[in-house]
């Protein structure tokens, strides 16, 4: 059953804005630093709520094609990790590198869009 609004990202944004506006200015030292960590983490979760599901779907689609098999996302990632450790694939494989580049681009859009 769908929940009432606010949606996940909207409620997270409301909490983040409350912490940034009403709480952070009153704090300093270690607690002040930790509230900034919390605010940053909430921003990550807001982006994940919006961007995570389509990013996971794209990663799954690419992995199915790359590995030529169908399985849940964690299993396919485990299989790719195994092949890389075993030396069955390496950086000379353009399809592998393209998959990794796109996957990391999606991850960074959530975890830290400013990273270059």
């Amino acid at each position, binding site marked *: 059953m769908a929940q009432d609004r606010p949606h996940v990202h909207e409620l997270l944004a409301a909490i983040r804005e409350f912490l940034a506006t009403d709480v952070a200015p009153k704090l300093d*030292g270690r607690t002040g630093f*930790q509230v900034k960590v919390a605010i940053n983490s909430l921003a990550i979760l807001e982006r994940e709520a919006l961007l995570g599901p389509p990013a996971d779907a794209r990663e799954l689609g690419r992995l199915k094609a790359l590995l030529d098999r169908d399985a849940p996302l964690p299993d396919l990632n485990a299989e*790719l990790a195994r092949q890389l450790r075993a*030396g069955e694939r390496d*950086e000379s494989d353009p399809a592998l*590198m393209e998959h*990794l580049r796109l996957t990391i681009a999606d991850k*960074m859009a959530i975890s830290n869009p400013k990273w270059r």
Partner: protein
Amino acid sequence: MTGGNDELVAALERAGTRYFGVPVRIENLFRHSGGASRQTWGFDAVLGDGRREALVLRRDPPRKAGTAAPTPAENALALTRSTEFHILRAAARHGVPVPVTLFELEPGDGGGEGYVMHHVPGTAIARELLREPRYAEGRKKIVPQLGAILARIHAIPTSEVPPLKAPTPAELLAQLLRVLDAIGEPHPVFELAIAWLDRRKPPAAAPRFVHGDFRTGNYLADESGVTAILDWEIAHLGDPLEDLGWLCIKSWRFGAMENEAGGFGRREDLFRAYEAATGRPLDRQRARWWEIYGTVRWGVICMNQAWKHLSGAETSMELASIGRRAAETEFDLVQLLSEA
């Protein structure tokens, strides 16, 4: 100011009184932010004869009883505070700028394992050093100073420090894989990078004393440049270029991406300063291997910091949040391996 820290105040008063030989009162005790795995506290020791000393305590946080042990992560190299104390003394003898150490806590003091040193002026906070106008002159000096300081660190005779581990590159890579397996979340990019590094391992060389965590954030600097090198807890024996590669990984540039050497200068400026101080040419390709190794290492440490929280070993929002920084190193590694 010291509310809630009565036990620590009492411990510091006991240890301080023993060291100074006069009654000591502790004032203005506060915990420094940062340092998720080790605690650093600042305080004033007011001596019975009226002297006041600005001091710093470094100690291990008390671990909660009955919780899961951490993964065998970077802890495989982590030193005790007592070993760190003796390394600081050796570094000082060899001209490395470090805080002057005074005394260690003893078990009977009740403050855990740690040691006390003099406060050193300067800040370790990269964003202040990079942006505040008063550091404009100081920050130009940082990279040449770090190159020269590293040469002194690597010249510390191994006979003058407590016994340390001497992991080979192969052992360091195996250690990363053990941590990945213990956490059990497959990361194809880390697997690719470790396999890449494994195929290109540098030949073994005579082990030298290595700082192990030489990066922006782990030294103090002020208007005059670098004032002290901190955080010696994973010092070990190995390839000195490990320290130069680690300093250059993207995670320590704090937004100043064009300045590969810790955000304050070019990689090549660091290398030249190091060569000038050692009088020997530096193998750039080998330094690059260590920079890529360092990037994987930081990514795995990020996963492991989050794991400390997730396993219940050390509940901390700060540790938990570091888990999401692993992706930054995956991004960097895909870039590095595409260029390499």
